[in-house]
């Protein structure tokens, strides 16, 4: 493997367990991730599927009671072995994060400019004035109007879209190599969503960022991702290049997700397709394939064992025993 294609993020068999009552709940069970510099991976799934937990594990942001298993390598560092001080140096410098709701992710009683300066000072040991200068550059870069004045704003004095731009500026303050985005557009208006996505794509090209983008919105994932990984009940059930997964969804869950989108115009009497049932309780997951109880193509084998990764085409895999049978069903989306 040559240096240009060496992954910058590599997680193997990642597990995250949370203490709950007397036992443990496994929120993420055996996730593999691999991301090259400049690449965007969308983690797609409904709430509770473990996508945010996976994301936070990459930064070890979980409370101490949570146990992270497997291996995480980011930019050549073994993240799970980092000492507390090395971990602090890694967070915000090598990897930084954009949160879902920038209204909650900024400290409400500090000026935005100072919060950016604080980060730069922390990682580069520069003066406050120097840090604020960086803040100004970034505010200009993310196209916040009258940036000089906005640096002195408190979070509540900005609109949601502008706050998310400021959050992106903060995340990029120390030129990270990897950006983790936790549903960064979910809390925004639809028109602002597109602006933020376009900005992120533009900045990614400029900075050569690798982005892990968590979302439950397929439209957003298609807009920004090179690759998509669909998560269900703590596992990646299907992953591949964005185009492959969308054009040729192989796992029944992915098919269900795509079918539950409104395609073009929906007739007045047509009903939107919904996946029956609800996601499993992680404290008592069903045996075998977690999607089994909701799946139309369920056979007894599905409950016996967790399905292994099956290659659909090169770089496109799905965890399902019934891929062969499903593939024979002609054009599943058109048939719906």
């Amino acid at each position: 493997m040559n240096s240009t294609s060496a992954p910058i993020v590599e997680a193997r068999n990642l597990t995250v367990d949370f203490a709950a009552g007397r036992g443990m709940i496994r929120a993420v069970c055996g996730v593999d991730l691999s991301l090259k510099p400049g690449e965007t991976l969308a983690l797609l799934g409904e709430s509770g599927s473990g996508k945010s937990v996976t994301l936070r594990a990459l930064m070890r942001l979980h409370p101490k009671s949570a146990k992270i298993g497997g291996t995480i390598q980011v930019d050549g560092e073994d993240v799970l072995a980092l000492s507390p001080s090395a971990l602090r140096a890694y967070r915000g410098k090598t990897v930084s994060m954009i949160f879902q709701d920038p209204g909650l992710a900024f400290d409400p009683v500090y000026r935005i400019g100072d919060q950016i300066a604080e980060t730069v000072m922390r990682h580069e040991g520069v003066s406050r004035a120097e840090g604020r200068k960086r803040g100004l550059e970034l505010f200009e870069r993310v196209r916040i109007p009258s940036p000089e004045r906005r640096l002195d704003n408190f979070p509540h004095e900005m609109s949601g879209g502008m706050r998310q731009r400021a959050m992106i500026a903060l995340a990029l303050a120390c030129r990270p190599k990897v950006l983790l985005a936790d549903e960064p557009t979910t809390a925004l208006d639809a028109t602002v969503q597109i602006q933020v996505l376009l900005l992120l794509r533009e900045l990614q090209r400029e900075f050569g960022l690798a982005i892990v983008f968590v979302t439950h919105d397929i439209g957003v994932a298609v807009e920004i991702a090179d690759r998509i990984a669909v998560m269900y009940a703590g596992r990646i059930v299907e992953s591949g290049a964005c185009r492959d997964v969308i054009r040729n969804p192989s796992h029944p869950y992915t098919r269900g997700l795509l079918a539950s989108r409104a395609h073009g115009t929906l007739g007045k009497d047509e009903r939107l397709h919904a996946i029956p049932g609800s996601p499993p309780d992680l404290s008592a997951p069903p045996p075998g394939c977690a999607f089994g109880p909701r799946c139309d193509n369920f056979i007894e084998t599905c409950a016996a064992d967790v399905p292994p990764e099956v290659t659909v085409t090169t770089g496109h895999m799905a965890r399902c025993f019934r891929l062969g049978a499903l593939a024979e069903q002609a054009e599943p989306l058109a048939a719906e």
Partner: protein
Amino acid sequence: MLLYALQRLVYVLPVAFGVSIVCFMLVHLAPGDPLTAIMPIDATAAQQAEMRAAYGFDKPLPVQYGLWLWKVFHGDLGNSIASGRPVVSEVGRAVGNSLILASLATLIGFGFGTFFGFVAGYFRGSLLDRLASLVSILGVSVPHYWLGMVMVIVFSALLGWLPSTGAGPGGSGAWRPDLEHLRYIILPAITMSAIPMGIISRTVRALVADILSQEFVQALRAKGMGEWDVFKHVVRNAAPTALAVMGLQLGYLLGGSILIETVFAWPGTGFLLNTAIFQRDLPLLQGTILVLALFFVGLNLIVDVLQTTLDPRIQRG
């Protein structure tokens, strides 16, 4: 900022006016004539009328109020009926004593309250949290005059370490900052600090726990901030609310505690109020209440102004 402070100051004026009316009327609402207490039982009606005229009690209430207010503006709160000394000097001395006691109690109560609150908030559910919570709940719920008596029994009567009553040796009427006087202030100060300590510790614990569960704390960690940096942010976020509670508590403390000052015979405003009530010493009672009430008003003003500087979300103007 200055404009806001001035604006708040203007708002204070009607409050102060109301306070003065309440102070004035309060005493007149109480049953019984203030003069009967000091008049001999066999005084003739003519003598009683003469005394009333001398103290101005024969005039209509609004006139009495006007005269009283006029004198108050000139720093004259009248003379104590019981001792005959000017109320201003009596109240002044008592305020001084109460201030000293309150300052020490504040230092102890706020210091330990904040400390316990932070420890409990940071280590929620731990043994430390439960210990700190126990101490603060005891502080709030144990009657402080009872606590005072227990302190006297243990540290004065049984152990003989500290004196039980007074502000200084030989019934000293004023506290002075020397070692001998310091021994006298310890017990009342600790007793007095119990309630504010409990209240502040509970408040700070709830604040810290709430702030730590907010997403921005995780965001701070996500950008590589250490625990000390996070702590500074937590303090800054907790400060406005904690300060408001502290301001109120400081007001209560400065007002002096009738119960505690009586238990320890501490010559402060609470003790003075107690004396004035039992002796039906009207001018003294009025004067003391007025001074205390104005204290509260002034303190709230300071807290209001400080809060807006600490929490930008509170609108100015």
